[in-house]
């Protein structure tokens, strides 16, 4: 698939799930030994075209996630390039132990793609939301975790992941009409965060679809005389320690994620920061360890403080609090 303005716009319109489906189709044309496994989610993952075009590279195991991971590992042990996908809670929590044993412990290389992560399916309730997945996968050695910010990053991350040295977990967030962060091609490397905006007062470290909200928030903060650096930490593990070392030179670190503030990006940044001397405070924004009432995506983002306005408010409050101390 060419990386051009038209395709970038299509990927934005269709959302990261369907973009993944399109990207997987292109990869199947390029890699003979690619196999995609799903749990009865072909349409939801944009894989209908893939299924029809490459039936021999597509395996649907039915609603059986533990079996899917075992089969994927078996295929990977025989040197296939393997992608698994289903909705994130089932891709991560349901088959967590299979992931630990088959991918972490045995190091069979598989790329897992969790679709509709975070709050995307909030109208279906929290069984279909995922605010724990980064925390779960992070504590399994040997699995890299990537959360692309937009459609183009999803395309680039997928190809990078299937060629990476470890198993990967791709956390896809957002819904259709997913805002564009990257409007043209750029260099993507697993483990290397991307500075989207320079700034000297505070640093916002974020990942996934909320990157867009953070960029908007940083623009609003500029009008409040707060200069923000915005870092797209697309790879949560291995985390980019160098950028955190730089970030602690600013007066406040803010982490923003569509995930529990326990266990995810915020925790990963805090762990790294805690090793450094004389660092500023960290404000961790995300879901505050609760399953609350469900609702539509934008409504839930607002409720959990992940809209640009709420992010601005929280940051300004924190700065005020710091200044008063």
């Amino acid at each position, binding site marked *: 698939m060419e990386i051009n303005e038209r395709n970038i716009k299509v990927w934005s319109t269709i959302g990261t799930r369907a973009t993944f489906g399109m990207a997987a189709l292109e990869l199947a044309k390029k890699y003979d030994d690619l196999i995609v496994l799903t749990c009865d989610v072909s349409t939801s993952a944009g894989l209908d075209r893939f299924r029809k075009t490459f039936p021999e590279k597509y395996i649907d195991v039915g609603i059986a996630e533990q079996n899917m991971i075992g*089969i994927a590992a078996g295929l990977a042990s025989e040197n296939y390039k393997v992608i698994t996908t289903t909705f994130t809670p089932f891709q991560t929590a349901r088959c967590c132990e299979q992931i630990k044993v088959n991918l972490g412990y045995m190091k069979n290389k598989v790329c897992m793609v969790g679709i509709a992560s975070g709050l995307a399916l909030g109208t279906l309730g929290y069984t279909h939301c995922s605010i724990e997945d980064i925390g779960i996968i992070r504590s399994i050695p040997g699995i890299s975790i990537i959360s692309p910010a937009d459609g183009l990053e999803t395309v680039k991350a997928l190809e990078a992941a299937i060629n990476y040295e470890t198993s990967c977990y791709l956390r896809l967030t957002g819904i259709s009409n997913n805002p564009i962060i990257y409007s043209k091609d750029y260099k993507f490397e697993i483990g290397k965060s991307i500075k989207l905006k320079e700034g000297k007062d505070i640093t916002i470290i974020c990942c996934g679809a909320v990157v867009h909200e953070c960029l908007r928030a940083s623009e609003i903060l500029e009008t409040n005389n707060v200069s923000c650096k915005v870092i797209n930490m697309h790879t949560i593990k291995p985390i980019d320690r160098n950028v955190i070392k730089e970030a602690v030179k600013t007066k406040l670190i803010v982490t923003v994620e569509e995930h529990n503030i326990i266990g995810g990006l915020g925790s990963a940044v805090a762990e790294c920061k805690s090793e450094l001397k004389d660092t500023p405070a960290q404000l961790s924004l995300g879901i505050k360890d609760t399953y609350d009432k469900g609702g539509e995506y934008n409504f839930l983002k607002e409720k959990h403080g992940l809209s640009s306005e709420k992010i601005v408010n929280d940051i300004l409050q924190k700065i005020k609090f710091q200044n008063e101390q």
Partner: protein
Amino acid sequence: MQEEKKLEYLDKIKKFSVNVRKNILKMALSAGSSSAHIGGALSITDIVSTLFAYKMNFEKNNPLDENRDRFILSKGHACLAYYAALCGIGYISEEELNTFEKNESNLLGHPVINKELGIEFSNGSLGMGLSLGIGVALSSLKKKKNFNVFVVVGDGECNEGSVWEAAMAAPNFKLNNLHVIIDRNNFQQTGSNKEIMDLGNLKDKWKSFGWDTTELDGHNLTDLINYFSESDTINKPKAIVANTIKGKGFSFFENNNNWHHAVLTKSLYEKAINELQE
């Protein structure tokens, strides 16, 4: 198969199984107070011996041969039999066997993946081996290599839902090269299957899931040879419910669930070795 040939194989498997039992005892003794899963290793010994000494294709001195038949010990705690069998085919040395459960050993109380030693996967968390077997069997068919895959699961292990996910999938994927051998020794960790979670009619269950299912005596080498000599002609995934005795081969182990995981003392070791030599 000609009678003469069959007798030859019988003799080969019998000798192999005696060595496996001997090495199980040796490793269990060396494990000392760490204990060892003796009962479940002995119940699969004759099955494992038939597979390694007769049925499975593999290359001498080449554990990584792409065309090898694959063996997956889903009931990983029975690994004493697995390690002893791998020693029997020359992939693991007797010296290596002596390192069983020692610090940083390659041979722990559950198999740890080490393909150079012939250990295909790290099994032990129950319910996962059959799914791995499906992935490997699929690969064999896709690459047109047509090697066989043998997965040994425990009867207690069939409590795990993940076993049935795999059981449902294999016939759907038409994996004619996949075998599951259920070690029906009627016991699990803290009691009999009947006491803990009655499995009902296992043969019917596997059959209803679409497997070609056979029930046989897991210690009758003739029955085992007869089955495996014809099994390649069956065009379905194959389930073998093998009726076995936990602790088989030694009078004081047999059907004694205390030997699920226990310490083998020197005196009991001597007693067992004597029985083996009779």
